């Protein structure tokens, strides 16, 4: 597992925009999509055009964008499936699925064209609660440390694994996950100590 700090898109009109402008634009589009009524599929043409334009302007490679969208799609499908119980079930389901997918696409484009530091500064300017900001910052920071740790543990196990088999792989992976959980708790304690050592209360 190799985690990338950020997905490097080529410079584009969108990536050059200020984070606050991009966030405001994304929010307007998302609100527009959310306010469209279910059951009128024709109205979806407008957000489809807007989202496609945003994707084109961001110079996002279509295959990569689609792959990222597919990773999130199960959540959209699960959420949309809830409207299947309505009388106009299938039309509402498809409309909601397209709306959710378009919203996810906008979020993917925003996050890929805005460095994490800029998003973080924006959240801080928006006066989000400090504890929430700290949690987001720590989560982002330690994702990479944990990913590296998983990779090292996986390699170390692979280096001494001579038999093949799905059962063994599951057994080994569960071991890695268990160790990682214990090590993460220990690391969390050390990180907290390091925070306190520099005045955190």
């Amino acid at each position, binding site marked *: 597992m190799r985690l990338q*700090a950020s997905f490097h898109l080529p410079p584009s009109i969108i990536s050059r925009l200020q984070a606050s402008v991009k966030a405001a634009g994304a929010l307007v589009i998302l609100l527009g999509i959310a306010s469209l009524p279910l059951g009128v599929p024709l109205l979806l043409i407008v957000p489809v055009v807007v989202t496609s334009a945003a994707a084109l302007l961001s110079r996002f490679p279509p295959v990569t964008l689609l792959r990222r969208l597919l990773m999130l799609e199960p959540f959209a499908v699960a959420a949309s499936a809830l409207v299947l119980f309505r009388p106009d079930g299938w039309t509402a389901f498809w409309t909601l699925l397209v709306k959710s997918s378009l919203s996810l696409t906008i979020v993917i484009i925003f996050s890929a064209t805005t460095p*994490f*530091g800029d998003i*973080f500064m924006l959240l801080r300017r928006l006066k989000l609660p400090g504890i929430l900001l700290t949690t987001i*910052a*720590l989560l*982002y*920071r*330690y994702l*990479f*440390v944990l990913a*590296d740790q998983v990779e090292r543990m996986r390699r170390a196990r692979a280096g001494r694994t001579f038999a093949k088999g799905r059962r063994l792989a599951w057994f080994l992976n569960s071991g890695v996950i268990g160790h990682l959980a214990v090590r993460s708790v220990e*690391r969390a304690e*050390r*990180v907290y*100590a*390091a*925070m*306190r*050592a*520099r*005045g*955190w*209360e």
Partner: protein
Amino acid sequence: MSMALQVRDLRYCYPDGKEALKGVTFAVEDGECVGLVGPNGAGKSTLLLHLNGLLPETDAPLPAVWVRGIPVSRDRAREIHRRVGLLFQDPDDQLFCPTVFEDVAFGPSQLGLGEQEVKTLVESSLRTVGLEGFEHRMPHHLSGGEKRRVCLAGVLACRPEILVLDEPTSDLDPRAKRELKALLGGLPATRIIATHDLELVVELCSRVILIDEGRVVAEGSAGALLGDETLMLAHGLEKPHILRHRHPH
């Protein structure tokens, strides 16, 4: 010369019952650079956590550590954290912010300094460790040596009077080690360095404290103590090469 730090009969038991410190006593004078050596599990890291007030979790009936005459206790923790800067062994534990700037600014921001003052402090601390222009770098993109120096900048930005360093040169390549050694040697603060890098101790420390099994076993000048091969071997250490090959001429 006034006393920077005093430790008297310091005892500590971990919650699992393991007795880590069994009555440690020593003192460090202002401006001194003291090496703390001992085998793995001797209690060095536990001792360092006490010097900064991170341990014990609850106040002992009688204080055992004094920083410039101030007893280390829960209610004085903020002041102790400011006076004693602690560099952790694993830089990934200490670099918890998304960017270098935010990490170095973390301590000063907690001290309630203004935005401009924090910025100036961050810039000067990064300059001291030779990392100007690294403000917007992300910690996971830095090399081991750079991470260690950012950690040091984060500690220096709090303007501590005493620097406590836990294995500052572990996992560093020779060049990064050399650079960090030069950097630590040039700092004016009182320094306490816990390390297995005995060459570093010989080069930087005027005095050495040897601890083993939670007790101070010996104390003396770096040359005399680390040069005693029998003592070193008895406590899981080795006479450093720099002393082994030192010629009389």
